[in-house]
């Protein structure tokens, strides 16, 4: 069958009226919008988790009890000796001993205004920033020898928790995306079924004249694919300003440069490239779901005919 010889606008099944160019694109647009939100959630969780994990992995906190007591061997205070050892260690970018005022500020949320007048002895805190390739083997032992009781907190617990949180958020986003795809498939299948019911007589006539299942399914699929692609495009366009706003708000947390200038180019640059690809994927994905669902629905329905 040389379907390409048909006039381009020949609609023998009357699908132009059976499959409305309003209802289906609107429903698919709503699904595409929700899919865009889910994709943004997935990408956002991945980006934030990556940034936070990098930050946590590059920092170290050292607690030194009795910081002003003499170290072993004597000659300097415990905190000074610990800071010296840290500064001499390869892979350490910076070492900073927190002042009493900074410690009081850290404790303020728990102890209130009296944090700086505590009678309880506080440990000294050293904030350490690491290079990416820092090798800290043996550091704890050396610090323990210089100032017994010193604790090195490498934030491993927090990194683990962040990782689990990020994976959970991504799983939720993926689940939401799967649900949206299923609902979109059902919506398109129902719309196709409605079209089949409305055009049953025309389909039976064309089928009786020798049209194959593939021909009839192809006519439906062409129409549904077009409508679904239009819906996907509308959904993506509607989602774009929301995503740009969210991305701009999340930029400081994700380590992305804040866009101080209000230009459109700068605003669009906030979205990561993979999200732009995902937006394009929404259109092609909607079209693909439309095509496959229409083909499957129509071919299954046609099996009732001889």
């Amino acid at each position, binding site marked *: *069958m040389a379907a390409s010889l048909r006039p381009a606008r020949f609609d023998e099944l009357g699908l132009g009226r059976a499959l409305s160019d309003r209802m289906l694109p609107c429903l698919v647009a709503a699904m595409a919008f929700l899919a865009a939100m889910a994709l943004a959630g997935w990408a956002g969780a991945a980006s934030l988790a990556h940034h936070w994990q990098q930050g946590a992995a590059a920092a170290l906190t050292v607690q030194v009890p009795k910081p002003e007591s003499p170290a072993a061997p004597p000659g300097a205070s415990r905190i000074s000796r610990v800071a010296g050892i840290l500064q001499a260690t390869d892979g350490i970018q910076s070492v900073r001993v927190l002042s009493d005022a900074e410690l009081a500020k850290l404790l303020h949320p728990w102890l209130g205004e009296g944090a700086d007048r505590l009678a309880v002895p506080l440990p000294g805190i050293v904030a350490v920033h690491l290079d990416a390739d820092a090798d800290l083997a043996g550091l704890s032992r050396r610090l323990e020898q210089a100032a017994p009781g010193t604790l090195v907190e490498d934030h491993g617990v927090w990194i683990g928790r962040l990782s689990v949180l990020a994976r959970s958020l991504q799983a939720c986003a993926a689940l939401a995306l799967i649900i949206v795809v299923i609902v979109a498939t059902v919506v398109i299948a129902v719309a196709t079924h409605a079209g089949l019911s409305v055009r049953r007589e025309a389909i039976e006539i064309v089928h009786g004249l020798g049209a194959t299942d593939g021909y009839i399914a192809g006519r439906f699929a062409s129409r549904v694919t077009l409508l679904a692609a239009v819906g996907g495009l509308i959904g993506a366009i509607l989602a774009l300003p929301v995503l740009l706003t969210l991305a701009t708000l999340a930029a400081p947390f994700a380590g992305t440069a804040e866009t101080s200038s209000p230009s459109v180019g700068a605003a669009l640059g906030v979205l990561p490239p993979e999200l732009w690809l995902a937006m394009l994927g929404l259109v092609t994905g909607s079209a693909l779901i439309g095509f496959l669902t229409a083909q499957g629905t129509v071919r299954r329905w046609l*099996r009732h005919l001889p």
Partner: protein
Amino acid sequence: MVRFEAVGLRYGSARGRGAAAQVLHDITFALPEGAFRWLLGPSGAGKTSVLRLMYLATRPTSGRLTLLGTSVESAPRRALPPLRRRIGVVFQDFRLLTHLSAFDNVALPLRLSGRPEGQIRADVTEMLRWVGLGRKTAVRPMELSGGEQQRIAIARAVITRPDLLLADEPTGNLDDDQALRLMQLLNEMNRLGTTVVVATHNESLVSRFAAPALRLEQGRLSVRD
């Protein structure tokens, strides 16, 4: 060409609600290539069911049916569309696509066969002129009279020069002149080699155009040739 061997037809399923209705019993006959047959019988005798089997709207539930060299009862579904394109049918209720013009209705079988659009335009225009609708090519069926719709249905059935042409009460909506013209067309198609089967109540038509007849009564073939 067409061979019925002890063909039976039952509508519905014994597993469904109510009993299945056996509408045809043990139908046996053969039509050679180029034959012309009347299919006669009272209403409910099974004429339309025999035609439905011949234009592949259903398959026999028992017996063997061979159409244009294909065993219908065992053929896979994909084998039937090419067979249908070799069969022309004039339906009692026309079965035209009301959203298409007269031209597009008649052109439909040619387009399904993949004919080039230029050839389709020439053939369809000529056919519509022949059936007296040359000036109404762009008109939709609902704007035409019953007789004119019938003529579009006839034009659609014969436009592909089918091997087998079936007509179910084709003169029901036509006046005498139009009925005469239709019978002349069917005879002409038959003379060119098409096997023709016409189901009708119209005994006067049968008497005017002498041809062998298959007579059905209560789903059984009572007279053969």
